[in-house]
């Protein structure tokens, strides 16, 4: 009765590789291999914040995994995130604040979009431009 057709089954992946085995394959934002991030290295003061941040290529990989598992929106999120890895924490917080209701004028949002474009973050720039248009129509600009 239901027009059910054989559907794609979700990729049955093997159990995820424990971190230790994955170490040599993954690099941190700084470029440092994951498996060099040992407790001894931390104690010696050799591990920086950037050594414990995700690399944009890793986020692109996660985006592809999300796409394969029927969630293109999650993939899009990871691709926006990959762009944001290059920004300082303070800039990320600043843009979030600017996008909250009635925090920014239309022009200020346009400026943020241009700023993002200049930092090689076009997907986020497009998101901010889209927000500016809708905020103007819905009275959410400052």
């Amino acid at each position: 009765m239901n027009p059910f057709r054989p559907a794609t089954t979700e990729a049955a992946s093997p159990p995820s590789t424990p971190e230790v085995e994955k170490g040599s394959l993954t690099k941190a934002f700084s470029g440092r291999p994951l498996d060099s991030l040992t407790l001894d290295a931390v104690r010696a003061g050799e591990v920086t914040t950037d050594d414990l941040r995700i690399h944009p290529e890793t986020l692109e990989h996660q985006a592809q995994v999300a796409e394969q598992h029927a969630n293109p929106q999650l993939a899009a999120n990871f691709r926006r995130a990959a762009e944001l890895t290059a920004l300082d924490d303070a800039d990320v917080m600043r843009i979030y604040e600017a996008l909250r209701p009635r925090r920014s004028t239309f022009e200020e949002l346009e400026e943020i979009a241009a700023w993002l474009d200049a930092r090689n973050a076009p997907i986020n720039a497009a998101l901010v431009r889209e927000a500016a248009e809708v905020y103007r129509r819905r009275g959410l600009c400052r």
Partner: protein
Amino acid sequence: MADRRVGRIRDLDARRVNLDGFAVENADLGLVALRSPYDPEPSLRLVDGRVVELDGVAEADFDTIDAFIAAHGLDLSVAEEATAFSDVELARLFVDFAVPRAEVVRLVAGCTPAKLARVLALLRPAELTMAMTKLRARRTPSNQGHVTNRADDPLLLAADAATAAAYGFRELETTVPVLADAPSNAVAVSVGAAVGAAGVLVQCSVEEALELELGLRGFVSYAETVSLYGTEGVFTDGDDTPWSKAFLTSAYASRGIKMRVSSGAGAEVLMGGAERRSMLYLESRCVSLARAIGAQGVQNGGIDGASVAAAVPAGVRELMAENVMVMARNLEACTGNDALMSESDVRRTSRTLPILLAGSDFVCSGFGTIQRYDNMFGPSNWNAEDLDDWLALQRDWGVDGGLKTAPPESLGALRRRAAEAVQAVYRWFGLADLSDESVDAAVDAVGSKDLVGDDALSVLNAARTIRESGLSMVDVVTALAESGFEEEAERVLAMLKARVVGDYLQTAAIFDSSMNVLSLVTDPNDYAGPGTGYEPSEARQAEIDDIRQARSVEDLRAEQASWASSELSVVGPALPGTDPREVLVGVSPATGREIWRTLSGLPVVDVLREILAGIEEEGCVGRVVRINDTLDLGMVGLSAARLAGSGVAVGLQAKGTALIHRRDLPPLANLELYSVAPALERSHYRLLGVNAARHARGATPEPAKNPYTDEAIEARYHTAVVSLVAVERGCCAPLGPDELKVTDESFSTGDN
């Protein structure tokens, strides 16, 4: 007093369920669960691959929620196909286990919010349970717990976080009564969790910007307090828009931090902005938006508004329908059961049970692992007081609700290690000098009421120092390692490294205790009917089954042996008596051999002394014999009566059941019977002796009555009875009766 209600109603009025509020359904206020007459008709019109109408609203009139969903939330390539299904046809796909999860997910991606709400409204409770079993993302169920206290005491937070981790919670959520304490709480709970187990995710629920900052600094490993609302007015009042939330979602991912959003029925009603829509429709907008902004998961099922939903007809069903909606949108579901939705134990259990049975990515989005009064989110539907109930429920139904027994004998050491780890970290950074006395108090505390002193200022000071000094979680790793907490340092470091790998950003990701990621990707739910899907491993099943209260026959035998006494001994074979004043007491085969205490906790010897004293009070002579060839109490009593000079005997089973028998009666007839052994006291046995003697003298005494209790006496004692009977059977042999001697009380060390 014409309007005075009758006693039956007065009695019901006083029941706890009547502390709850129940609302008349009212669509104008949004007090309607599944469908309001003002909910829009589902519609989706596309022009050149662009949504120009969504659920009855034209593009030019889209509010921010419509606009974001239209731009990002729907798979337009399946929209036409999905629209061709009637609501009921789609609903059947949810329930039919022969239709794979992936097919439901594929079609639902093309459903508008109004369409999905209508489909979910068709599912009845058992169908929701079926749909949840099939549609949840992760194969292995899990659970999330709250760890907070009224004082923000870091030592207690750490001890309680370790305890929660030992109970099996894989995500811990803390929050603060004092906002500025947040960094301190985040550190204390993260350290405590690492003491309890590897791979426990931790979050600190505070205002969005501060929560993000805590994440960036590494103090927490996931975020959840990213609230979505179903109407634009309430969304904006919540100080966000779909775009700011989408950006926030990416901000977390850009630092490798797991996050999910929060929504749930009732929030819009409470804020007076439901716009006459049903709770299910508004939540459908939230869930569609969650998918649109790229969140991997949703915490819903009422949450703070759960009791609002529960106040209207079918409201509890609506809460579960929301959860299933999340699963159908291919997202992680953290399925409510957190805010206490009723004062009635029956209602709060009823609210959770179908979800526990179906299994969920997180059955509770906040089981209160601490005392109710210490829960700074407000009391949960389940609290520390209910941990044993939850473990029993899992065991009763043979399902995995995510928890296991934390061994009582090792919990003290675990809590001490957690408190000492935080004490060491706070000393290392000079944040606070928390005393050994405070550690001792936190280890033993039931809750914050048991703490010594008040460190409120030092906590605030520590939190401010953490926030202002630029301290990060890597520094905490160092402090732990340098203070002798290497294993915990490794565990905290492993959580930081997990951010670099990013596998736990995928849908429904948790870590097992070996740091393997279990998610939609690595552990997909493959339920396709009986014999498929999640089954606990043998080891996990043992955790579910082996609750600490379980007793075997051997446990009972050992316990009884510890009470063995020399005050009851065999003097030789029992012979018939001739004295017409002689009343016998016949005891069962295990009495004084393997069983020494009755179900009411009385030593068997004392019971015998009471009966003998009663017999003597009435001028008769008592004698004790053990009947060895039967464990049937009627036959024990009758056999003894046949040996008695008077022809009357008391029969006593070692567990305490007793009767009066006479030699001319059939085995199953008797003169008087005490059947409720667990409630019998010394005076009852004394009276039985008195009455037996009166029967022997030919009198007709007023029969002794069983004491009455309305407690679940059978639940309490039936397992013990089964074991006691097994022991009696083991002692039963085709041998003649023994004559027993009860040592005179004046020579004993009895506890009279």
